[in-house]
């Protein structure tokens, strides 16, 4: 007790100074709004960084465990896939909701160009596997393109990255739709045209297929809005869309087989006549 008192007598000024500064600091951040905001921001940035670091560390420590479980999962899936290839034909029905309107045919991409103005993909799946012209081609992350010519064992695809490719796309949650075309040299950016300028869109919105053609099912994710503007004198947006899938880094795709396509086309042609 005596020692504590001695400390107070000896260092009292310094302690008082520190105590006052702490009181002021609390006062400043609690009463002055601007200072409080700055304090809270700084604090949250700091703690976020700290949390991220700790998360990274713990993730790293868990890697071994995750590797093990992934290897086991892989082995199990290989088992299933190989068995299925033996027992069933190549086309698998994946969609069970829409009366199985769509079935998907897995296909490997055997050849592709990316850096030309008009690119073509070739799939290792042809008539034998059920491929037809004007079928949609999708990947697990987004859409790829549309088939044009089909031979016995191969099919040619006009991918998104082609000056003539036109995909009907809409903004998720809105019913406005437009044409998705490739204008830039960048294989990750597409342009969405003909969306009227009264549509309330913002950067980061998801672009999905509209389903207004018979080629793609509706609401397949394509990409997000990275930028948009209204051209002078136009009433439509010009929207830059960042694709979800990197077509450059794609080795596997699925052909979309719309079983009701002919029915729909027949009906629509009837109306024309």
């Amino acid at each position, binding site marked *: 007790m005596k020692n504590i008192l001695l400390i107070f007598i000896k260092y*009292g*000024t310094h302690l*008082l*100074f520190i105590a*006052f*500064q702490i*009181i*002021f*600091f*609390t*006062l*400043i951040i609690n*009463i*002055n709004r*601007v*200072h409080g905001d*700055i*304090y809270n921001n*700084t604090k949250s940035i700091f703690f976020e960084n700290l949390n991220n670091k700790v998360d990274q560390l713990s993730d790293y420590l868990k890697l071994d465990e995750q590797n093990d479980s992934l290897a086991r999962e892989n082995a199990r899936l290989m088992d299933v896939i190989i068995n299925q290839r033996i027992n069933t034909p190549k086309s698998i029905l994946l969609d069970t909701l829409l009366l199985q309107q769509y079935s998907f045919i897995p296909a490997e991409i055997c050849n592709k160009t990316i850096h030309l103005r008009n690119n073509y993909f070739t799939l290792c799946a042809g008539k034998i596997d059920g491929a037809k012209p004007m079928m949609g081609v999708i990947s697990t992350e987004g859409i790829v393109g549309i088939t044009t010519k089909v031979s016995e064992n191969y099919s040619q695809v006009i991918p998104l990255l082609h000056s003539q490719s036109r995909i009907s796309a809409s903004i998720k949650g809105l019913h406005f739709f437009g044409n998705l075309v490739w204008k830039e040299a960048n294989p990750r950016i597409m342009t969405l045209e003909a969306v009227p300028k009264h549509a309330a869109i913002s950067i980061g919105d998801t672009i999905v297929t509209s389903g207004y053609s018979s080629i793609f099912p509706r609401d397949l994710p394509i990409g997000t809005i990275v930028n948009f503007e209204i051209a002078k004198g136009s009433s439509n947006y010009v929207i830059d869309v960042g694709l979800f899938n990197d077509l450059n880094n794609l080795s596997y795709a699925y052909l979309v087989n719309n079983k009701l396509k002919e029915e729909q086309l027949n009906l629509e042609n009837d109306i024309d006549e």
Partner: protein
Amino acid sequence: MNSLVTKSVIRAVLLILLQGLVFRRIAFQMGDFAFIHLFIYPIIILLLPIRTPKIIQITVAFVVGLSIDAFYSSYGIHASALVFTAYIRNFVIKLLEPYSGYNVDESPTLSKLGFSWFLSFASILFFIHLFFYFSVEAFSFVFFFEILMNTIFSFIASILLVMLYQLIFRNDY
């Protein structure tokens, strides 16, 4: 001794009122430039008698600072800076000690210790005070340029004001 305390208290009250009612409203503006603010109240701490115990200096700074803050409605900012100034005042006094030493019962005024001594004493403490004050006011060194500009220009204006004050009131007020 007693008269010294009375004098100090009266001086403090008058200077707080002067700062809070008059100098608070004065901010020179030159074009886009609003960096000049006048500060006189740190002189209250500067002019406390030399041998005042440190703990009392800091307490006085606490009270004076909070009264100034009440005028500026910026709770704790002036007080924080002023307490810091009071905390380092003794170091500065020790640093500038002349060969003959101080008369510890007196206030370190211009008339007692000479023009150059007082100028360096006031300059050091005012500069530190202003820099501390504007740093706390901005609360982030993101605004370092503004802090520096504010400090430098307010420093020049305030030190002129303080020297003027000391030259006018020569008799230890």
